Protein backbone atom coordinates (compact mmCIF):
# COMPACT_ATOMS: atom_id res chain seq x y z
CA UNK A 1 0.00 0.00 0.00
CA UNK A 2 1.24 3.43 -0.82
CA UNK A 3 1.49 6.20 1.67
CA UNK A 4 -0.82 8.99 0.45
CA UNK A 5 2.00 11.52 0.69
CA UNK A 6 4.52 9.42 -1.24
CA UNK A 7 5.93 10.86 -4.45
CA UNK A 8 5.05 8.92 -7.63
CA UNK A 9 7.35 5.96 -8.33
CA UNK A 10 9.81 6.70 -11.09
CA UNK A 11 12.02 4.23 -12.94
CA UNK A 12 15.14 5.75 -11.46
CA UNK A 13 14.96 6.37 -7.76
CA UNK A 14 16.95 5.95 -4.57
CA UNK A 15 15.38 5.16 -1.21
CA UNK A 16 17.24 5.90 2.03
CA UNK A 17 16.09 3.72 4.92
CA UNK A 18 16.06 5.08 8.47
CA UNK A 19 14.19 2.53 10.57
CA UNK A 20 11.55 -0.16 10.73
CA UNK A 21 8.41 0.22 12.83
CA UNK A 22 4.94 -1.29 13.13
CA UNK A 23 2.60 -0.30 10.38
CA UNK A 24 0.25 2.29 11.80
CA UNK A 25 -0.13 5.98 12.28
CA UNK A 26 2.95 7.90 11.19
CA UNK A 27 1.30 11.29 11.03
CA UNK A 28 3.94 12.48 13.47
CA UNK A 29 6.50 12.28 10.65
CA UNK A 30 4.61 14.68 8.40
CA UNK A 31 6.73 17.63 7.39
CA UNK A 32 9.98 16.06 8.59
CA UNK A 33 12.87 16.37 6.13
CA UNK A 34 15.66 13.85 5.73
CA UNK A 35 19.34 13.74 4.82
CA UNK A 36 18.61 14.65 1.22
CA UNK A 37 16.10 17.34 2.12
CA UNK A 38 13.21 15.13 1.00
CA UNK A 39 9.95 14.26 2.73
CA UNK A 40 10.11 11.46 5.29
CA UNK A 41 7.42 8.86 4.69
CA UNK A 42 6.30 5.45 5.91
CA UNK A 43 6.42 2.60 3.39
CA UNK A 44 4.01 -0.10 4.58
CA UNK A 45 3.80 -3.83 3.96
CA UNK A 46 1.69 -6.05 6.18
CA UNK A 47 2.21 -5.33 9.88
CA UNK A 48 5.46 -3.42 9.30
CA UNK A 49 6.55 -0.09 7.92
CA UNK A 50 9.91 1.28 6.83
CA UNK A 51 10.67 4.92 7.53
CA UNK A 52 12.27 6.14 4.32
CA UNK A 53 13.12 9.10 2.12
CA UNK A 54 13.37 9.30 -1.65
CA UNK A 55 16.66 10.93 -2.56
CA UNK A 56 18.07 12.12 -5.87
CA UNK A 57 20.02 9.21 -7.39
CA UNK A 58 22.21 11.71 -9.24
CA UNK A 59 23.40 13.00 -5.86
CA UNK A 60 23.38 9.75 -3.88
CA UNK A 61 25.24 7.17 -5.92
CA UNK A 62 27.48 4.73 -4.08
CA UNK A 63 30.57 6.82 -4.78
CA UNK A 64 28.85 10.04 -3.78
CA UNK A 65 27.50 8.59 -0.55
CA UNK A 66 30.94 7.27 0.30
CA UNK A 67 32.49 10.63 -0.55
CA UNK A 68 30.05 12.51 1.66
CA UNK A 69 30.53 10.16 4.59
CA UNK A 70 34.30 10.56 4.23
CA UNK A 71 34.09 14.30 4.75
CA UNK A 72 33.91 15.18 8.45
CA UNK A 73 31.46 18.05 8.05
CA UNK A 74 29.11 16.10 5.79
CA UNK A 75 29.39 13.01 7.92
CA UNK A 76 28.31 15.01 10.93
CA UNK A 77 25.38 16.58 9.09
CA UNK A 78 24.18 13.25 7.71
CA UNK A 79 24.67 11.42 11.00
CA UNK A 80 22.74 14.04 12.95
CA UNK A 81 19.88 14.22 10.47
CA UNK A 82 19.62 10.44 10.18
CA UNK A 83 19.53 10.25 13.96
CA UNK A 84 16.90 13.00 14.20
CA UNK A 85 14.59 11.02 11.90
CA UNK A 86 15.16 7.84 13.92
CA UNK A 87 14.34 9.76 17.12
CA UNK A 88 11.13 11.10 15.55
CA UNK A 89 10.11 7.57 14.55
CA UNK A 90 10.94 6.21 18.02
CA UNK A 91 8.69 8.86 19.59
CA UNK A 92 5.75 7.24 17.82
CA UNK A 93 6.38 3.65 18.92
CA UNK A 94 8.84 0.72 18.99
CA UNK A 95 11.53 1.32 16.40
CA UNK A 96 14.41 -0.64 14.87
CA UNK A 97 17.03 1.96 13.88
CA UNK A 98 19.12 1.36 10.76
CA UNK A 99 22.84 1.97 10.55
CA UNK A 100 24.24 4.38 7.92
CA UNK A 101 23.85 3.88 4.97
CA UNK A 102 21.09 1.61 3.69
CA UNK A 103 19.80 2.43 0.25
CA UNK A 104 17.34 0.66 -2.07
CA UNK A 105 16.40 1.25 -5.69
CA UNK A 106 12.62 1.05 -5.41
CA UNK A 107 9.80 1.01 -2.88
CA UNK A 108 9.04 -2.61 -3.84
CA UNK A 109 12.56 -3.63 -2.92
CA UNK A 110 12.03 -2.16 0.54
CA UNK A 111 8.71 -3.96 0.87
CA UNK A 112 10.50 -7.13 -0.14
CA UNK A 113 12.81 -6.68 2.86
CA UNK A 114 9.83 -6.20 5.17
CA UNK A 115 8.08 -9.28 3.76
CA UNK A 116 11.12 -11.59 3.79
CA UNK A 117 11.96 -10.88 7.41
CA UNK A 118 8.53 -10.08 8.74
CA UNK A 119 8.48 -12.52 11.67
CA UNK A 120 11.97 -11.59 12.77
CA UNK A 121 11.34 -7.85 12.71
CA UNK A 122 7.98 -8.24 14.47
CA UNK A 123 9.66 -10.33 17.16
CA UNK A 124 12.32 -7.66 17.73
CA UNK A 125 9.78 -4.83 17.84
CA UNK A 126 7.77 -6.76 20.43
CA UNK A 127 10.89 -7.22 22.55
CA UNK A 128 11.63 -3.47 22.44
CA UNK A 129 8.09 -2.40 23.31
CA UNK A 130 7.98 -0.23 26.45
CA UNK A 131 11.78 -0.26 26.67
CA UNK A 132 14.50 2.31 26.14
CA UNK A 133 18.24 2.39 25.60
CA UNK A 134 20.36 4.15 28.18
CA UNK A 135 24.08 4.87 27.82
CA UNK A 136 26.50 4.72 30.75
CA UNK A 137 30.09 5.95 30.75
CA UNK A 138 32.31 5.86 33.81
CA UNK A 139 35.84 6.98 34.65
CA UNK A 140 38.21 6.04 37.48
CA UNK A 141 41.70 7.11 38.55
CA UNK A 142 44.02 4.09 38.65
CA UNK A 143 46.30 5.74 41.24
CA UNK A 144 43.37 6.39 43.53
CA UNK A 145 42.16 2.82 43.08
CA UNK A 146 45.60 1.46 43.94
CA UNK A 147 45.72 3.61 47.06
CA UNK A 148 42.24 2.68 48.19
CA UNK A 149 41.85 -0.88 46.98
CA UNK A 150 45.26 -2.09 45.82
CA UNK A 151 47.70 -4.61 47.24
CA UNK A 152 50.87 -3.48 45.42
CA UNK A 153 53.96 -2.31 47.31
CA UNK A 154 54.19 1.49 47.57
CA UNK A 155 56.50 2.86 44.88
CA UNK A 156 58.77 4.69 47.31
CA UNK A 157 60.01 1.60 49.12
CA UNK A 158 63.39 0.08 48.53
CA UNK A 159 64.54 -3.48 49.14
CA UNK A 160 63.52 -4.80 52.51
CA UNK A 161 60.68 -2.30 52.71
CA UNK A 162 62.83 0.61 53.85
CA UNK A 163 62.14 3.97 52.20
CA UNK A 164 64.41 4.21 49.15
CA UNK A 165 65.62 7.66 50.13
CA UNK A 166 67.29 6.19 53.20
CA UNK A 167 69.58 3.88 51.21
CA UNK A 168 73.23 4.43 52.13
CA UNK A 169 74.66 7.06 49.79
CA UNK A 170 77.86 6.60 47.89
CA UNK A 171 77.46 2.97 46.87
CA UNK A 172 76.65 2.73 43.16
CA UNK A 173 75.31 -0.80 43.57
CA UNK A 174 72.95 0.19 46.36
CA UNK A 175 71.57 3.25 44.57
CA UNK A 176 71.22 1.16 41.40
CA UNK A 177 69.39 -1.55 43.27
CA UNK A 178 67.17 1.02 44.92
CA UNK A 179 66.33 2.50 41.54
CA UNK A 180 65.49 -0.90 40.11
CA UNK A 181 63.29 -1.79 43.06
CA UNK A 182 61.54 1.53 42.79
CA UNK A 183 60.98 1.09 39.06
CA UNK A 184 59.62 -2.40 39.59
CA UNK A 185 57.28 -1.11 42.25
CA UNK A 186 56.09 1.64 39.91
CA UNK A 187 55.46 -0.82 37.12
CA UNK A 188 53.66 -3.13 39.51
CA UNK A 189 51.53 -0.24 40.70
CA UNK A 190 50.70 0.70 37.12
CA UNK A 191 49.70 -2.83 36.22
CA UNK A 192 47.73 -3.00 39.45
CA UNK A 193 46.04 0.26 38.54
CA UNK A 194 45.01 -1.09 35.15
CA UNK A 195 43.73 -4.28 36.72
CA UNK A 196 41.70 -2.36 39.30
CA UNK A 197 40.36 0.00 36.64
CA UNK A 198 39.16 -2.95 34.58
CA UNK A 199 37.63 -4.51 37.67
CA UNK A 200 35.85 -1.25 38.50
CA UNK A 201 34.23 -1.24 35.07
CA UNK A 202 33.37 -4.92 35.35
CA UNK A 203 31.70 -4.38 38.74
CA UNK A 204 29.54 -1.52 37.51
CA UNK A 205 28.61 -3.41 34.35
CA UNK A 206 27.70 -6.54 36.29
CA UNK A 207 25.47 -4.56 38.68
CA UNK A 208 23.70 -2.71 35.87
CA UNK A 209 23.43 -5.80 33.71
CA UNK A 210 21.51 -7.59 36.47
CA UNK A 211 18.89 -4.84 36.42
CA UNK A 212 18.64 -4.21 32.71
CA UNK A 213 16.69 -6.25 30.18
CA UNK A 214 19.83 -6.43 28.07
CA UNK A 215 23.29 -4.92 27.98
CA UNK A 216 25.93 -4.16 25.38
CA UNK A 217 29.41 -3.13 26.38
CA UNK A 218 31.73 -1.23 24.04
CA UNK A 219 35.51 -1.34 24.40
CA UNK A 220 36.72 1.66 26.41
CA UNK A 221 36.93 4.67 24.14
CA UNK A 222 40.32 6.02 25.18
CA UNK A 223 42.67 4.51 27.70
CA UNK A 224 44.82 7.59 28.22
CA UNK A 225 44.32 9.64 31.33
CA UNK A 226 41.67 12.23 30.66
CA UNK A 227 41.75 15.26 32.92
CA UNK A 228 40.95 14.68 36.56
CA UNK A 229 38.61 11.80 36.10
CA UNK A 230 41.24 9.23 35.12
CA UNK A 231 40.64 6.53 32.54
CA UNK A 232 37.36 5.44 31.06
CA UNK A 233 36.45 2.14 32.67
CA UNK A 234 33.00 1.59 31.21
CA UNK A 235 31.22 2.53 27.99
CA UNK A 236 28.01 0.56 27.70
CA UNK A 237 24.38 0.60 26.61
CA UNK A 238 21.54 -0.91 28.62
CA UNK A 239 18.00 -1.74 27.56
CA UNK A 240 15.71 -0.82 30.43
CA UNK A 241 11.99 -0.53 31.06
CA UNK A 242 11.12 3.01 29.99
CA UNK A 243 9.18 3.59 33.21
CA UNK A 244 12.29 2.75 35.26
CA UNK A 245 14.77 4.90 33.36
CA UNK A 246 15.19 7.52 36.09
CA UNK A 247 15.70 4.90 38.79
CA UNK A 248 18.20 3.09 36.59
CA UNK A 249 20.19 6.30 36.13
CA UNK A 250 20.25 6.87 39.90
CA UNK A 251 21.36 3.31 40.51
CA UNK A 252 24.09 3.66 37.89
CA UNK A 253 25.49 6.64 39.75
CA UNK A 254 25.42 4.82 43.07
CA UNK A 255 26.96 1.67 41.62
CA UNK A 256 29.73 3.62 39.95
CA UNK A 257 30.54 5.47 43.16
CA UNK A 258 30.56 2.24 45.13
CA UNK A 259 32.93 0.63 42.64
CA UNK A 260 35.39 3.49 42.94
CA UNK A 261 34.57 5.50 39.84
CA UNK A 262 35.08 9.26 39.96
CA UNK A 263 32.71 10.28 37.21
CA UNK A 264 29.71 8.75 35.52
CA UNK A 265 27.75 10.09 32.57
CA UNK A 266 24.27 8.86 31.78
CA UNK A 267 23.00 9.46 28.25
CA UNK A 268 19.59 8.79 26.80
CA UNK A 269 16.92 7.88 26.30
CA UNK A 270 18.11 6.57 22.95
CA UNK A 271 16.29 4.74 20.17
CA UNK A 272 17.44 1.16 20.60
CA UNK A 273 20.41 1.22 18.21
CA UNK A 274 22.44 -1.16 20.37
CA UNK A 275 19.59 -3.68 20.60
CA UNK A 276 18.18 -3.52 17.07
CA UNK A 277 19.47 -7.03 16.36
CA UNK A 278 17.06 -8.40 18.92
CA UNK A 279 17.35 -10.62 22.01
CA UNK A 280 18.86 -13.58 20.19
CA UNK A 281 21.88 -11.70 18.90
CA UNK A 282 23.28 -10.70 22.28
CA UNK A 283 26.41 -12.25 23.74
CA UNK A 284 27.28 -12.39 27.41
CA UNK A 285 29.09 -9.28 28.64
CA UNK A 286 32.81 -9.95 28.65
CA UNK A 287 35.02 -8.99 31.53
CA UNK A 288 37.78 -6.68 30.35
CA UNK A 289 40.01 -7.47 33.33
CA UNK A 290 42.07 -9.95 31.35
CA UNK A 291 42.82 -7.67 28.39
Amino acid sequence: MYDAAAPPLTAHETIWVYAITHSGDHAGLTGLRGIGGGQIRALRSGPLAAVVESVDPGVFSAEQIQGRLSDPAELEAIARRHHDVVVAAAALGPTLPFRLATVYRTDDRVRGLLDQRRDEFCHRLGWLTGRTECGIKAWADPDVLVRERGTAEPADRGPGGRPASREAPGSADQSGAAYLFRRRAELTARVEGQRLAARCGDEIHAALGRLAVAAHRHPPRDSRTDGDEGVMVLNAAYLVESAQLAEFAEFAQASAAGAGALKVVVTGPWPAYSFADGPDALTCPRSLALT
Partner: protein
Amino acid sequence: MTREWAPAPASRERLPTHPEPSSLVDILERVLDKGIVVAGDIRVDLLDIELLTIRLRLLIASVDRAKEMGIDWWEHDPTLSSGARDLAAENRQLRERIGALEAGRTAGSGSRARRAESAVTPPPRSRNSSQ
Protein backbone atom coordinates in the same frame (compact mmCIF):
# COMPACT_ATOMS: atom_id res chain seq x y z
CA MET B 1 9.00 -6.27 35.66
CA THR B 2 10.20 -5.60 39.23
CA ARG B 3 13.80 -5.76 40.36
CA GLU B 4 15.53 -5.67 43.73
CA TRP B 5 17.53 -2.47 44.11
CA ALA B 6 20.70 -2.79 46.18
CA PRO B 7 21.04 -0.04 48.80
CA ALA B 8 23.40 2.77 47.80
CA PRO B 9 26.81 2.34 49.45
CA ALA B 10 27.18 4.57 52.49
CA SER B 11 30.90 5.10 52.03
CA ARG B 12 30.64 7.59 49.20
CA GLU B 13 28.36 10.39 48.14
CA ARG B 14 26.45 9.97 44.93
CA LEU B 15 28.54 11.09 42.00
CA PRO B 16 27.70 14.44 40.46
CA THR B 17 25.68 14.14 37.28
CA HIS B 18 26.80 15.59 33.99
CA PRO B 19 23.68 15.98 31.91
CA GLU B 20 24.65 16.72 28.37
CA PRO B 21 22.92 16.84 25.01
CA SER B 22 23.70 13.98 22.62
CA SER B 23 27.32 14.47 21.70
CA LEU B 24 28.47 13.83 18.16
CA VAL B 25 30.67 11.00 19.37
CA ASP B 26 27.71 9.26 21.02
CA ILE B 27 25.65 9.66 17.85
CA LEU B 28 28.43 8.42 15.55
CA GLU B 29 29.01 5.45 17.81
CA ARG B 30 25.41 4.44 17.19
CA VAL B 31 24.67 5.36 13.57
CA LEU B 32 27.97 3.94 12.33
CA ASP B 33 28.45 0.89 14.56
CA LYS B 34 24.99 -0.07 15.76
CA GLY B 35 21.56 -0.46 14.26
CA ILE B 36 20.28 -2.89 11.68
CA VAL B 37 22.60 -3.75 8.81
CA VAL B 38 21.09 -5.07 5.60
CA ALA B 39 22.71 -5.41 2.20
CA GLY B 40 20.52 -2.89 0.42
CA ASP B 41 20.87 -2.25 -3.30
CA ILE B 42 23.89 0.03 -3.09
CA ARG B 43 27.02 -1.14 -1.42
CA VAL B 44 28.78 1.59 0.54
CA ASP B 45 32.30 0.66 1.62
CA LEU B 46 32.67 1.90 5.16
CA LEU B 47 36.30 0.90 5.80
CA ASP B 48 37.77 4.32 5.03
CA ILE B 49 34.94 5.96 6.86
CA GLU B 50 35.63 3.84 9.92
CA LEU B 51 39.25 4.94 9.91
CA LEU B 52 38.21 8.55 9.65
CA THR B 53 35.60 8.27 12.36
CA ILE B 54 37.97 6.58 14.76
CA ARG B 55 40.24 9.56 14.35
CA LEU B 56 37.24 11.87 14.46
CA ARG B 57 36.07 10.42 17.76
CA LEU B 58 39.48 10.78 19.32
CA LEU B 59 39.55 14.28 17.94
CA ILE B 60 36.21 15.34 19.35
CA ALA B 61 36.70 13.62 22.66
CA SER B 62 40.10 14.97 23.50
CA VAL B 63 41.18 17.85 21.30
CA ASP B 64 42.46 19.93 24.16
CA ARG B 65 44.21 17.03 25.84
CA ALA B 66 45.78 15.91 22.57
CA LYS B 67 47.07 19.36 21.73
CA GLU B 68 48.47 19.63 25.20
CA MET B 69 50.43 16.47 24.47
CA GLY B 70 51.62 17.81 21.12
CA ILE B 71 49.25 15.72 19.01
CA ASP B 72 47.71 17.81 16.27
CA TRP B 73 47.97 15.71 13.15
CA TRP B 74 44.63 16.99 11.91
CA GLU B 75 46.18 20.36 11.31
CA HIS B 76 48.63 18.76 8.91
CA ASP B 77 46.68 15.88 7.42
CA PRO B 78 46.13 16.54 3.72
CA THR B 79 43.08 14.29 3.65
CA LEU B 80 41.34 16.61 6.09
CA SER B 81 42.23 19.89 4.43
CA SER B 82 42.10 21.13 0.90
CA GLY B 83 45.20 22.18 -0.95
CA ALA B 84 48.79 21.11 -0.53
CA ARG B 85 50.77 21.74 2.61
CA ASP B 86 53.99 23.68 2.61
CA LEU B 87 56.27 20.92 3.86
CA ALA B 88 59.25 23.19 4.25
CA ALA B 89 57.32 25.55 6.50
CA GLU B 90 55.95 22.58 8.40
CA ASN B 91 59.41 21.13 8.95
CA ARG B 92 60.71 24.44 10.14
CA GLN B 93 57.86 24.78 12.64
CA LEU B 94 58.37 21.24 13.88
CA ARG B 95 62.07 21.89 14.41
CA GLU B 96 61.24 25.08 16.31
CA ARG B 97 58.77 23.17 18.42
CA ILE B 98 61.25 20.41 19.23
CA GLY B 99 63.80 23.04 20.13
CA ALA B 100 61.35 24.80 22.42
CA LEU B 101 60.39 21.53 24.10
CA GLU B 102 64.00 20.54 24.63
CA ALA B 103 64.81 23.96 26.04
CA GLY B 104 61.85 23.68 28.37
CA ARG B 105 62.89 20.20 29.51
CA THR B 106 66.45 21.33 30.20
CA ALA B 107 65.01 24.03 32.43
CA GLY B 108 63.28 21.25 34.33
CA SER B 109 59.70 22.45 34.21
CA GLY B 110 56.92 20.59 32.39
CA SER B 111 54.61 23.58 32.38
CA ARG B 112 57.34 25.72 30.91
CA ALA B 113 57.68 23.24 28.05
CA ARG B 114 53.96 23.56 27.35
CA ARG B 115 54.19 27.35 27.32
CA ALA B 116 57.15 27.15 24.96
CA GLU B 117 55.19 24.89 22.66
CA SER B 118 52.15 27.13 22.56
CA ALA B 119 54.40 30.02 21.57
CA VAL B 120 54.93 28.33 18.21
CA THR B 121 52.13 29.51 15.97
CA PRO B 122 50.21 26.58 14.46
CA PRO B 123 49.86 26.63 10.67
CA PRO B 124 46.73 28.32 9.28
CA ARG B 125 43.82 25.91 9.26
CA SER B 126 42.01 25.20 6.02
CA ARG B 127 38.23 25.62 5.93
CA ASN B 128 37.72 21.91 5.38
CA SER B 129 39.70 20.64 8.34
CA SER B 130 37.62 19.20 11.13
CA GLN B 131 36.98 21.09 14.36
